[in-house]
């Protein structure tokens, strides 16, 4: 519970009135007015606290959001009994940005969105989340804290490519490749089951033989497919452009149910059905940082695999 700015001004005003009361001879009407003002402050303190008591907040998780788009997270507030006024839900991110959503009148339950302005690419941990109100008089701010949601991922805006193109055409737009893209998935190797693997990717026969769960990996066929090498030893502009291209590839792969294989300095991963989830790719895109020019090279890959940033591939 704390004073608002209006509350601080009100307190200063009260002190002035109190001083005037004692500076003048006692009078009953003045005492009555002073009593009224005192009770207004005291009742505001009590009522503001009472307004947020019992308000239950359920916060959804942040969905990854593209940079440049408004951040939204769904929330549900619920209360029993009397109506509450001016209930605001706030989430503070680690960069100081505050997202908020509000319902002016809460009777029963209400769904709202906690929103914030567009943010640059990155992963933002939510430091704290709370419900607050300044009802009735705006003198005090009462807060009830809740567990903050999982971090917010803001991934780069995907590079534009024409809708409706096939995978190969889109790859041509994005990576400048001329070879046909791999449309078929070929079975790759078997590996042990890891947490997060989908049930349908389990190879049951191999699992029965081995006595443990085994995953069938799929990979693109002889054609190139969605595979890209990202060399992070580049300047920031090139790096952001490269990430935007990969973001577009993620979108393409998710839409066309393709697999994306990504190689970079400290990562080689497959994303898509039977592999890592696309959200992991977005997490990488949100958190990736460029490396200095003397950093380690990316893993070796076939010369036919597309490389990003694109300029470097022509050097």
């Amino acid at each position, binding site marked *: 519970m704390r004073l608002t700015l209006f509350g601080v001004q009100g307190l200063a005003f009260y002190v002035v009135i109190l001083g005037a009361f004692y500076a003048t001879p006692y009078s009953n009407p003045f005492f009555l007015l002073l009593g009224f003002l005192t009770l207004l402050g005291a009742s505001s303190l009590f009522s503001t606290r009472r307004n947020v008591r019992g308000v239950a907040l359920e916060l959804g998780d942040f969905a990854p959001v593209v940079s440049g788009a408004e951040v939204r997270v769904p929330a549900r507030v619920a209360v029993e009994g009397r109506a509450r006024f001016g209930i605001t839900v706030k989430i503070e991110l680690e960069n100081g940005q505050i997202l908020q959503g509000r319902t002016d*009148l809460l009777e029963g339950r209400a769904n709202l969105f906690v929103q914030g302005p567009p943010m640059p690419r990155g992963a933002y941990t939510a430091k704290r989340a709370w419900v607050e109100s300044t009802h009735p008089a705006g003198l005090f701010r009462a807060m009830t804290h809740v567990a903050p949601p999982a971090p917010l991922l803001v991934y780069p805006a995907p590079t534009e490519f024409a809708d409706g193109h096939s995978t190969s055409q889109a790859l041509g737009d994005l990576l400048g490749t001329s070879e046909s893209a791999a449309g078929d998935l070929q079975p790759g190797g078997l590996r042990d089951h890891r947490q997060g693997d989908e049930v349908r990717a389990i190879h049951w026969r191999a699992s029965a033989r081995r006595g443990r769960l085994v995953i069938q990996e799929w990979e693109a066929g002889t054609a190139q497919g969605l595979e890209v090498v990202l060399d992070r030893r580049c300047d920031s502009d090139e790096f952001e452009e490269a990430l935007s291209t990969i973001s577009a590839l993620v979108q393409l792969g998710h839409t066309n149910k393709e697999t994306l294989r990504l190689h970079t300095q400290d990562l080689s991963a497959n994303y898509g059905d039977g592999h890592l989830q696309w959200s992991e790719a977005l997490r990488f895109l949100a958190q990736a940082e460029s490396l200095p020019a003397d950093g380690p090279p990316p893993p070796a890959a076939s010369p036919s695999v597309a490389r990003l940033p694109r300029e470097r591939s022509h050097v």
Partner: protein
Amino acid sequence: MSSAKALRACTQVLVLINLVFVQMTEAAGLHALIPLYALTLAAPLLQRFAGNRAYLTAWNLLVMGIFGVLIWSVTRGDLGNVLEYGLILAVLCQVHLLNNLRLDQRPDLLFFNAFLIAVVAGYINRGSTFGLLFLAFVPPFLMGLELLAATGDGQEPGPRATGKLLRDGAKRSGVLLSLSLLVFVFWPRDFERKAFFHGRLDFTSQDDASASVGFTDMLSHRRRKSVGKDNRPALRIQVLDGDQAQVTSLWRGALLGITDGTSWEPLHPRVLRRSADVETDWVPIDTGHARRGAPPESVVQVSVQRLDPATQYAFVPASTYAVKPAEAGDLELQPSGGFQSRGEGSLSYELLLDADPAPEPGGTYEGRIPRALRPYIELPSSPNLDAAHALAAELVPDPEGTDQFRLVQRIANHLRENYSYLPPGSSDAPDSLAEFLGSEEGGHCELFASGFATMLRSLSIPCRIATGYRGDHWDPASGTLTLRMSDAHAWVEVYDPTAGWMSVDPTPAAFLAESKPGLFARAGAAVRSAWNAVTGFDEEARAQLFAWARTLPARGLAGVRSHPLATTGVLALIGSLLVLRRRRRTQDPLPVREYRAAIARAKITPLPGETPREILERATSNELEPVSLARLRSATEAHERERYAGRS
């Protein structure tokens, strides 16, 4: 109504009430306030110009100009008007803020200013009008604060939320006012506390002889503005022995015998000694004690406590036989027959009052006045008194040979029956004796006493004006009579050749007792009485209230026993209201009730476990009539929204 409009309406009402506050204090005349009233009422129309630079510049120039004029007035005048000038400036700022705040700007300052104006207006004028205005001020103030808090983050609540906020604000107003009254009654405090800067800061205007109703040993015809009701206790009287009913209601302090045509003052002691006043038969018994005349057959012994902090007069009724101060030497007999203490402030003394029947007045008007009484018929030749002379001649064209007392009564009755009482400071009050006697509009007791005395003197009937206190509202619980500053009164003492000095009060008695006032007049009197109870509240009043509260259970029980039917009816009504309220709170939401009603109207019996959608499908396949089906579909959708969608 949108929240922005509601907030602007609240601020507009606040500013209007502020203007009425200022008008009530008479800091500015109505002619000066009319433009501000007009600008306040036109604020919604002028809002369109709020962002216009020329409009804003004009406003700023106006405010600065008036501020400059006020500063100039203060430097030339006395500090007594600084509060009033401040009020004018404050209310001007209010109108300025109302007309120039953009919708995106917060009106915080407007609220602070509004309350400050209320405080200052209440300090200057403590009449019942202020009490009523403050009651009207609180709801828009609190509603406005709630709307301001709701729009604090740039959000604008919808109409439903706005309506609920306004209702919440109204309820909160009632609760806060009730709590304030409770704190006012129960909070312990020093009712006699002096100002921190006692004696240094006095905002009473120097033009007013007295800014509040109270005892004075001077009487003026001039109308006073902004006279407040001072309900502090002035005298506390208790009967020690004898019949309370025999105690007079007139308690004399000063005797005024000389007039200049516009005011009355006490006769100079030299004049009194020379005239050998006929009331100087007081005999000192011992130091400070005095008695006069033969001992009466029946007496009433009273104790008097003077609480008026600003006078040296002791208040002694005309029927007093003996005076006994608490401390020897406390009281000094004055040549005029009154008593004064050595210093101001609290004083205690006892009186023996003559309870024998008063001698019958008699005596024929002779027109020849004994030398000792000549000072009591003197009048200056002042045009201010011409109206009094004319009226006296009209009422008593031929006084010779007439019973003097009948002449006196004729004139007194004429004043009582043809003139109304107006409280001091009334805006309609006359400004001179001539205006009072000529208009028959009415006036306060000083005008009645002065007019009466002047008319008597014009007929050479010796008389003088007595000032003091009047009252006979004995408290049955404590057996005391408390006379307050506002009970100050002026009347006339007429010398009768047979009975001596007799008190005659020409002021009409309180209109509640004399006439049959209308509903509004009675309501006004009730409001004034209630407000006087607030402004005059002190330790004694609190003790009386607690004593009364302690008798409530017994009274309640007695009331129940004497009115069993009525009590049962009232309890049944309260119980019904509580049950209905509880039922309304636990009721299903309206869409759910309407859905049930739609099913009943469609004559469908839900099967166990059947969902509303399944019911609707069944009704559709059973070819329910189209109107009922449409109604059922609409109710089903509303029910789903209520149950599953929630509100945002």
